[in-house]
């Protein structure tokens, strides 16, 4: 059954309030959308409303962290990463303060709200900031685990989550950790590297490639974009020679770029980046946009086949 990542997140945050008495939730007038409302209901005195003022929210979070609290800042990914970018960089990341950012409506999951509410630049921005950990979990379980590890980690963490509803992809044995990729499908013909909820399309594409074309595509989910699992990426590049990255983000500066930065230093594989090709999206629902941007299974399969075919020419 498809689950809302935000609802799952909110429920889990409220649950963790007991384990972390210093945890405080900060919100800028979007408590239903981000689901920080669940924490408010459980711990009203540890919930701080800012109104529509993200820059102040981020710097107040710095002060709360200096006072020994663990602030978790809520808003849409576009506002956290862009409206309050310099506050994050200078007053949180530079002094390495223990502040967490829960950035919802990442990618184009705000759908018909339009470009103002999309965030296709946040991975690029956040991973360029020293001291920042950047996470993009792919299903409800990974969201819960990302939250748990973020709270255990001392220092700033940016977590981007989709506003969409997604199916579970992980088996019970999965355990998320910072800096580690998870391998969801084995294979040496091709490597599909995904982040966030694109893991679903990656897995479905791999299954289709195997079933219909006899191609064994490894699937690596990079929920920890920074630090990134260098070893798994190098191994995948070496063993497949053919790497396809998929992200709900601009292809400039995101997962694809991060993978290229590693593979180009090794020089043992070709990389094809699939994502939003450096443009602002048109008006449309989330599903419509995913289709128009080529981020659905059939189109990923097609791109994978083209990519494999061109291998011979290389």
């Amino acid at each position, binding site marked *: 059954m498809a689950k809302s990542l935000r609802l799952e997140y909110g429920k889990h945050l409220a649950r963790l309030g007991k384990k972390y008495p210093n945890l405080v939730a900060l919100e800028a007038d979007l408590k239903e959308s981000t689901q920080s409302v669940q924490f408010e209901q459980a711990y009203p005195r540890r919930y701080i409303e800012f109104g529509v003022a993200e*820059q102040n929210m981020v*710097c107040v979070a*710095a002060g709360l962290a200096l006072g020994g609290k663990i602030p978790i800042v809520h808003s849409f990914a576009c506002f956290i990463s862009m409206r309050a970018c310099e506050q994050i960089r200078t007053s949180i990341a530079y002094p390495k303060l223990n502040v967490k950012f829960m950035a919802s409506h990442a990618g184009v999951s705000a759908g018909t709200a339009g470009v103002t509410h999309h965030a296709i630049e946040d991975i690029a921005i956040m991973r360029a900031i020293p001291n920042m950990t950047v996470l993009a979990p792919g299903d409800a379980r990974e969201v819960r685990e990302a939250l748990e590890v973020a709270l255990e980690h001392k220092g700033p963490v940016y977590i981007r989550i989709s506003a969409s509803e997604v199916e579970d992809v992980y088996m019970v044995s999965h355990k998320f950790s910072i800096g580690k990729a998870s391998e969801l499908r084995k294979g040496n013909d091709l490597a599909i590297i995904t982040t966030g909820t694109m893991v679903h399309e990656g897995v479905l594409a791999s299954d289709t490639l195997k079933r219909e074309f006899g191609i064994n595509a490894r699937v690596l989910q990079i929920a920890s974009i920074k630090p990134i699992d260098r070893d798994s990426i190098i191994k995948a590049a070496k063993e497949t020679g053919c790497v396809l990255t998929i992200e709900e983000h601009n292809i400039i500066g995101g997962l694809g770029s991060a993978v290229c930065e590693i593979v180009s230093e090794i020089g043992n594989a070709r990389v094809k980046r699939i994502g939003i090709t450096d443009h602002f999206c048109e008006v449309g629902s989330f599903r419509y946009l995913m289709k128009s941007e080529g981020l659905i299974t059939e189109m990923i399969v097609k791109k994978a086949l083209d990519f494999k075919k061109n291998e011979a020419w290389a």
Partner: protein
Amino acid sequence: MMVHALVQAGCGHPGGAFSSVDIMIGLYFAVMKLDCNNPHWEERDRFILSKGHSSVAFYSVLSLAGFLCHESLMTFRQDGSLLSGHPDMHKVPGVEASTGSLGHGLSIGAGLALSGKMDRKKYRVFVLMGDGETQEGSVWEAAMFSRHYKLDNLVGIIDRNKLQIDGSTEKIMALEPYRAKWKSFGWEVKVIDGHNMRQIVNVFKNIPFRKGAPSLVIANTVKGKGISFMEDKPEWHGRPLKGRYADIARQEIECF
């Protein structure tokens, strides 16, 4: 001390350092509860230099107050030094927050003040801002927030030297009616002469000025105070103190 450090560095921001140093001396020697042997003492009052470019004054005061040795002070802005042009909390003992980007300090101070309230701590938070700095919109977000959460353990201080890099504040982007602006945001405001030590010390004796409201002190000051050629001259905001000017500044400070 400041003159020596500035000359040694060959760069820095002299004007705003001289306009704000009297306020910092008052705070560190007659107002705030601090322990230089235990800079992380939980009950200490907190000071945030939101106008981080006045670091040379701040470092000098920290050195006089025993947080920093004189030798380190003389490394101000030198290659590999711990003393940056804008203070780093992880490098300099006694520095509560890394500042230098204008418009951040009041929010950081509000966060610390709110944290103190949540934990029922008695400490107070003092945030020193430049007047030009308050042209940043985020300062007013913080002003609104601090009143909303009744942060009467928060004290904002404005170094009102009436000059910013490009000229007079009133010419560049008018702040007046300044007191009325802060009052309209629900702050309790007092205006002092920021170079009169008696007024500086007295104004902080009764904090909060009003229960349930954050306090604001507008300290009227002179940019470059104490150095004849620098007083009231916007060009000395970030000009290196060297050559003939360094000699005059040294002489004037020594005569004083």
